């Protein structure tokens, strides 16, 4: 039984223990990615966690078709992004959204912190005005230092298209921030 439960190409022979073990690996591997994708939309720590957890719970239901790591991460990113957008549209807590990132790497004096907070607020405001496709591509390209190839794998778009989208997004952001 244990031998049969090993992944065999072309066969859907599964074992609950194997699925749970693989899912745990994906959970440890991709939780930060899903959370940051949700946070880039919601900018609310608790809401982002709820959305990312819901994306994982839905991924578990169809995990037999998502056992490939790259397919799982791509599906998880899209699900977290869509759930976050849905949550944002329906949430009454949007007015309480966190306008300033929680973990700013630069810790400086009060005046400098205010300047950086204002800069971050303007940056997020500009990102929110980007078209959805450009926004997702830019977020994925910025977090965890994803390469264009990885972003292409996550979004399902060709690598050239990803490069073009990142370029267009940065250009629009610079125009809005200057």
């Amino acid at each position, binding site marked *: 039984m244990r031998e049969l439960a090993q992944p065999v190409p072309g066969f859907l022979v599964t074992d609950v223990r194997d699925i749970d073990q693989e899912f745990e690996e994906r959970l440890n591997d991709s939780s*930060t990615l899903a959370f940051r994708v949700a946070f880039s939309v919601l900018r609310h*720590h608790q809401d982002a966690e709820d959305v990312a957890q819901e994306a994982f719970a839905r991924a*578990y239901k169809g995990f037999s078709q998502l056992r490939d790591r790259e397919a799982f991460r791509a599906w998880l990113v899209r699900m977290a992004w869509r759930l976050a957008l849905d949550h944002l549209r329906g949430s009454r807590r949007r007015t309480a959204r966190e306008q300033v990132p929680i973990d*700013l790497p630069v810790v400086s004096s009060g005046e400098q912190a205010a300047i950086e907070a204002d800069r971050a607020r303007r*940056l997020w405001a500009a990102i929110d005005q980007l078209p959805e496709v450009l926004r997702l591509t830019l977020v994925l390209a910025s977090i965890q230092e994803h390469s264009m190839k990885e972003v292409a794998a996550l979004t399902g778009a060709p690598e050239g298209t990803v490069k073009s989208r990142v370029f267009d997004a940065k250009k629009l952001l610079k125009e809005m*921030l200057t």
Partner: protein
Amino acid sequence: MTDHDPDRDDVLKELDAALQVEPSRAFADGVRARVNRSQTVNRTMWWGLAAAASVGLATMALWRPAVEAPVQVVAAPVQATLPVVSKAAPMRERTVGGRVFRPGNTVRLARTASSEPRLEVITNQGAVLQEIWADYQGRPLAIAVGEPVVEGMATKPIVVDPIVVPPIVVSEIGKGPGPAGATPVIRRADATKETR
């Protein structure tokens, strides 16, 4: 963006810095709780569906005979045998026990309120057989109100008149009148009295 580090400009760095957030330590536990809750809900839902299906099947099984038996054999109340009268008597309807009998209409399919056919068996087989016999002979059977030959289920008792047998008198040989030594004569008692 390891393969495009030269192109990684301030915007991406700034965005990356803004997204340097980590989920809480309870994140994984929350995911597991959601998965378990989902499985419990699914299990409950499937059990509920199975129970509902079982109830439905049981209901169908109990209902099925009544639904699939449109023809019912219903024994009609015992009817009096219709009397047979002379052939000259006119054929008329007769009401027996609240039921109207017409010649040639003894067994019929009755329609219930739900317009389902219902076989009704009438127990006056005698009348039915008479009708069948009349049809077989090519002439209709006259069934009408008249002098009943047979009334009701019980027929008239057979009355047998007593048969009167006169006693036989045997007289001794030679003592009676007649030629002596002749063979004995057996006469009836009344005849003997007459002769005496």
